[in-house]
């Protein structure tokens, strides 16, 4: 079944930026539809089973969203995107959304940089592990090593501790100097400092090791120990699970599909949050990882702009968020040693089981894909693309429909268009 539906503003993503955009556009009188792959609004950051778990700010924005009149298409995937035209697949089939304006609020995902053993069972991402725990994964009494980067580490460690996990190590790859400078800069954001302290108090007996990262994961059939290093010495930590990632990378594929300029890995936007394509706006982590406060204000500007309303009053707050994003980037960029962890036999493309030694650095992404299948699998290069970009400096894989795997029937109209 394929149907058409016209709206003033279509918002892609129901995280903080998307909800804020939808609220501001709808309250301006626009007909708004928000599509999101998950079943509950809130995005990755506000993933929850019970809304009472969420911060006040999140509950307030969700309540305002529900009252705004914006339509929420949950459990809905966007599989083709052109300016003004979105092909989506939801629980009731596929739908063509015709939109006067589009707001991209597609968020970010974890950056996985391959190391020996990263594909062993019970090795997860950092945010990925948190999501699994929130979805019901039992971690009570489990010894867990976290090796990641950036502000996500603390809330994840807190979630694990609250669920009874025995944190064996919490490692931040960024060197102590960078982290300290970043923390010192937070005096301008006392709320963020207080929040970090609250998280830290939940796992205060566990050392937080800066300048430390996982070098390899080992075990028979599943992970049993993590080999950690600070660059000069290495030691082994017994564990049942590992959460390992290297911060977040913006999810820019929908922007790429729409033809928006991508600059330094983010969807480029102007003061009004408009991308290089007229009528296409972007907000939140897909324009640079800056946390939910920045996402909310950017979403507000994008939503107002998309609805044809002025938003200048919010620019100063947004610019503070951008400055925070720049400080995050400086503090938590991956250290070069992370690149050297993978050895010849390390799998670099999980979908297609491609080993590092099957690739040659002088190939670009396309030649590498054609020769080895790296990036050809069901994740469409979303995982290995970032890894290969980091390892070899390869360009991001091209984006083509379907943007996510969809049943073949979704690509088919109700009846053939021609004979």
């Amino acid at each position, binding site marked *: 079944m394929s149907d058409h539906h016209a709206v003033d503003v279509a918002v892609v993503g129901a995280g903080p930026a998307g909800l804020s955009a939808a609220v501001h556009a709808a309250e301006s009188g626009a007909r708004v539809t928000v599509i999101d792959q998950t079943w509950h609004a809130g995005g990755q950051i506000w993933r929850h089973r019970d809304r009472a778990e969420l911060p006040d700010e999140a509950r307030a924005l969700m309540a305002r969203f529900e009252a705004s009149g914006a339509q929420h298409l949950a459990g809905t995937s966007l599989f083709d995107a052109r300016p003004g035209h979105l092909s989506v697949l939801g629980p009731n089939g596929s739908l063509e959304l015709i939109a006067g304006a589009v707001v991209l609020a597609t968020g970010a995902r974890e950056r996985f940089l391959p190391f020996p053993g990263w594909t062993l069972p019970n090795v997860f991402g950092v945010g990925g592990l948190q999501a699994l725990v929130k979805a019901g994964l039992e971690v009570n009494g489990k010894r867990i090593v976290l090796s990641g980067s950036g502000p996500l580490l603390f809330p994840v460690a807190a979630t694990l501790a609250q669920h009874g996990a025995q944190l064996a190590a919490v490692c931040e790859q960024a060197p102590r100097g960078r982290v300290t400078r970043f923390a010192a800069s937070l005096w301008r954001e006392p709320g963020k400092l207080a929040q970090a302290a609250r998280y830290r108090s939940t796992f205060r007996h566990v050392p937080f090791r800066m300048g430390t990262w996982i070098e390899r994961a080992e075990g028979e059939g599943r992970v049993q120990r993590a080999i950690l290093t600070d660059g000069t010495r290495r030691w082994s930590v017994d564990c049942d699970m590992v959460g390992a990632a290297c911060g977040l990378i913006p999810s820019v594929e929908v922007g790429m599909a729409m033809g928006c300029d991508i600059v330094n890995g983010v969807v480029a936007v102007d003061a009004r949050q408009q991308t290089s394509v007229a009528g296409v706006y972007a907000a939140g982590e897909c324009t640079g990882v800056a946390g939910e406060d920045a996402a909310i204000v950017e979403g507000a500007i994008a939503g107002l702009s998309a609805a044809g309303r002025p938003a200048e009053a919010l620019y100063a707050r947004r610019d503070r968020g951008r400055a925070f994003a720049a400080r995050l980037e400086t503090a938590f960029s991956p250290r070069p040693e992370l690149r050297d962890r993978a050895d010849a036999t390390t799998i670099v493309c999980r979908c297609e089981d491609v080993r590092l030694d099957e690739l040659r650095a002088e*190939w670009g992404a396309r030649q590498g894909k054609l*020769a080895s299948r790296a990036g050809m699998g069901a994740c469409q290069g979303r995982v290995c693309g970032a890894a290969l970009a980091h390892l070899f400096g390869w360009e991001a894989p091209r984006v083509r429909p379907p943007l996510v795997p969809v049943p073949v029937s979704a690509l088919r109209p109700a009846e053939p268009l021609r004979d």
Partner: protein
Amino acid sequence: MTAAPRPDVVIVGAGIVGAACAYALAREQLRVLICDAGFPGGGATAAGMGHIVVMDDSPAQLALSALSRRLWEELAATLSLACEDERPGTLWIAASGEEFSALDEKRALYGRAGVRAEILDEQTLAAAEPNLRRGLAGALFVPDDRVLYPPNAARWLLDAAIERGAELRIGSAARAVGAGRLTLVGPSGAVETVEAGAVVIAAGIDTPSLIPGIAIVPRKGHLVITDRYPGLLHSQLVELGYLHSAHSMSGASTAFNLQPRSTGQVLIGSSRELAGRDASINPAIVRDMVARAVAFMPALAGCLAIRTWTGFRPATPDKLPLIGPWPDLPGVWIAAGHEGLGITTATGSAALIAAGIAGRAAPIDATPFLPSRPMPAMEAA
């Protein structure tokens, strides 16, 4: 640094056709230089299905594709695993009784070309491919048709040529061709003129930029690939009407063409349109193509599609490739314009080129492919 010895043959284009030519010529003990502006097998070779298939749109096409398939069979034992070479055969599906009655003649044609083929009735077809919709009249099964992975097959041919002394230059774009002479622009921008006994242009849709006026146009195609569904189908499935779709140059057309990959993935084709060099996905074409595929194989509807792409077949007005000497420039040979059959006919084309350059008799009648043949005007899109 000593200057490399003058090559006997320089080949423009390291796609499957150029690679096959390099291999065939290197086996003739000739000194081969092959260059490509991009990376080997990155053009139409990377976009195609990799179906090694005997086709009978014309007697010349039948002769060339049958010869070519035989040559692929000879290589099969030595191809690398990465070439994913398999022999699933082709089922030419007759949807109606009328189509079914045409199978006898097709089988006889194939038989005269030395190509095994057998007719399956409705029940036998249903048993062979249970996921096809019921009520199809039957099929012609061509058991020796193959499937391979073209970019790696091109790479294998190049490596085999290099082993026999050929030199490959990546990132070297041909700028101009003269009698026994080729001007190249290297990756650093350095311009170099190479002299050789023969120049072979195997540049696919880029051939007209070197040989102005040559009758090759890009004919766009779309493909969709699914996630892994091992056993969903066993042979390459092509509707009999495919030949008509491939033959008619006017307008856009789609035809049912389904391929099982060794990975368990399914490639869904095919489409043809003249759209210049616009590589963007045309959703209307994809819908049409997919609707056709689902009509033949309903179970496909629930399979996950993971990627769609386009490519450009180098098409000629009379649906035959241009293989042989270019009359306006002595010492210049053409091996281009293979449309959708370039993977199949690369080996046969290379055999014709090698025989021509070595001055031997061609393994099949080469005259239908001569680039000097009179060509009908290209039909308008």
